[in-house]
């Protein structure tokens, strides 16, 4: 873990529910359905885990007419999220959680300085009610996942367990087009191949990095993958591709496959 917890955080964590301290209080940001399904899946929520990181993102300009990754910004966006997540995970470790479900990653911009971003990671730490240790991540720390309580239940019943919230980031500068190129395209519908190629590059890099993280976590696959495109106060031709998903492993002995019922398909009359 990257940092020691502050004394007041340790104090707060002491009162929480653990397998040894079953009468303790718990905190979570679960809805009713989530709470019920996490318990149904055999887990108890113990406490809300929070990690935060206020980060000064450095400056980097892409050259006017070149498609290129802005590595300074890519590293900043990745490193800041990593710090926030590691701090959240440190809280979970301190409270003895087996994992964190429903991790929400958000970015807040500070109004007084456009280069300062706050990265926040929040999730609910859970323990296995029967004290099963097999749900931990590959490094024996708590697993992390951005799946909701419902998704967590579904995932276990699909025969998988979450290992790690994996992510990859790529901030990319899309080249400006020269006057000559612009004039050539006037009056016709044509593909701008250099822009298309920029999108392919940036997205591929983000996905590859995420997949490399999943490989490092010894996962079998990544579920719930989302690709976000965002601009965090940069110039107009700069965009971040952020790939995020939950790396999963098949359940070994935890739930026998024959105990998992086949799903029943329903047609909703609501939408």
């Amino acid at each position, binding site marked *: 873990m990257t940092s020691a917890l502050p004394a007041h955080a340790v104090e707060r964590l002491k009162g929480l529910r653990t397998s040894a301290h079953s009468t303790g209080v718990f905190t979570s940001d679960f809805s009713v359905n989530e709470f019920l399904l996490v318990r149904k899946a055999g887990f108890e929520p113990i406490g809300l885990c929070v990690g935060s990181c206020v980060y000064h993102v450095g400056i980097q300009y892409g050259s006017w007419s070149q498609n290129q990754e802005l590595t300074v910004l890519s590293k900043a966006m990745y490193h800041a999220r990593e710090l926030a997540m590691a701090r959240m995970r440190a809280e979970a470790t301190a409270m003895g959680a087996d994992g964190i479900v429903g991790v929400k990653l958000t970015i807040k911009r500070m109004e007084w300085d456009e280069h300062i971003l706050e990265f926040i990671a929040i999730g609910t730490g859970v323990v296995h009610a029967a004290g099963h240790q097999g749900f931990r991540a590959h490094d024996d720390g708590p697993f992390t996942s951005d799946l909701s309580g419902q998704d967590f239940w579904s995932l276990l019943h699909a025969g998988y367990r979450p290992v790690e919230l994996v992510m990859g980031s790529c901030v990319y500068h*899309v080249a400006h087009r020269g006057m000559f190129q612009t004039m050539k395209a006037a009056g016709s519908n044509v593909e701008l191949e250099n*822009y298309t190629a920029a999108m392919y590059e940036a997205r591929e890099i983000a996905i590859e990095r995420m997949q490399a993280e*999943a490989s490092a976590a010894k996962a*079998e696959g990544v579920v719930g*993958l989302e690709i976000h495109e965002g601009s965090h106060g940069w110039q107009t031709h700069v965009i971040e591709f952020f790939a995020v998903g939950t790396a999963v492993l098949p359940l070994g002995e935890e739930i026998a496959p024959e105990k998992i019922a*086949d799903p029943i398909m329903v047609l*909703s009359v609501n939408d």
Partner: protein
Amino acid sequence: MGLFDIFKKSDPEAKAQQAAAEARYEQTVTALSNGRLPAHLIDRLKNSREGTVPWTATMTPSELLIMRSHGIKPVAAVSATCWLHYGWSWTEGHMQGWDAAIERLQAEAKAAGANAVVDVKMRTVPLNIEASMDFTLIGTAVKIDGLPPSENPIVATVPALEFVKLLDASIVPTGIAVGAHYEWLNDWRGRTNLAFAGNLESKPLSTLWETVRRSAHAQLRRRLEKSGGGALAHVNFSQMFEVEDSNDTKKYLARHIVVATTVDVPAEPHLDFRSKTGARLRLADAMPLEFAMAVDLKGEGTPLKGRSRHHQSYSTYEDEGAI
């Protein structure tokens, strides 16, 4: 990562990295302009197919359940982009742009050895670059047990669960079809000027709208004739603009874009309510799906998620959002 990073440029490792990135970019441009996929992309899809790297899926965990029950396996997340400059028609550029992206998405799915792409989302990057936009598709390439890799994988806009629901009813979602049309109305006689009239229909504008919408839908139908089957049109986008001309005549531009998921419905009627013997069939006999009341596990519409309109005292306009 500080101010002095500029001085690190001479570092041979950084230089090599930059050269590699540039070479890779050049390769991407060459491949795309020759109608091929970049080599490193094909490698990633091949590795996913062979299982040397983890599979990736935009599917939800409950959709993984159908891997067991219906033998559908995710291979890799696939995506395709076409960035189009609209010189002569914005409206019809949408048809051209999406069509090119669909073709590339199919090429990726083929490289992944897949039978279909499910959960295909239509996206556009929020970069406003003059007179152009990107048409991006993101989805999950899937393999169906017992089927050889497809030459022309299906592109389905519906998520994996709905894909299976449709398959259960022997309907195959086959792709995306786009219809688009625009027209100018030159009002040189001032027929749209109704400033002193009472309650009155503006006939020229009604006609304009009607023509444009009908033409877009006719275009969609023509596209379906090629593929057969039907369409579930989920996007209907229309806009009208008024432009003041130099000599005070008004011009109007109307456009309509319709985007649909095409479905292949078997020819024999499924919802024949009367059988040959005259006995009335129940719906459940015609549809292989069972109907039952069920509680939806989605936590929507509950005040505890903070997303619904139950609480708004603490809503802000701050820039905070999903990343």
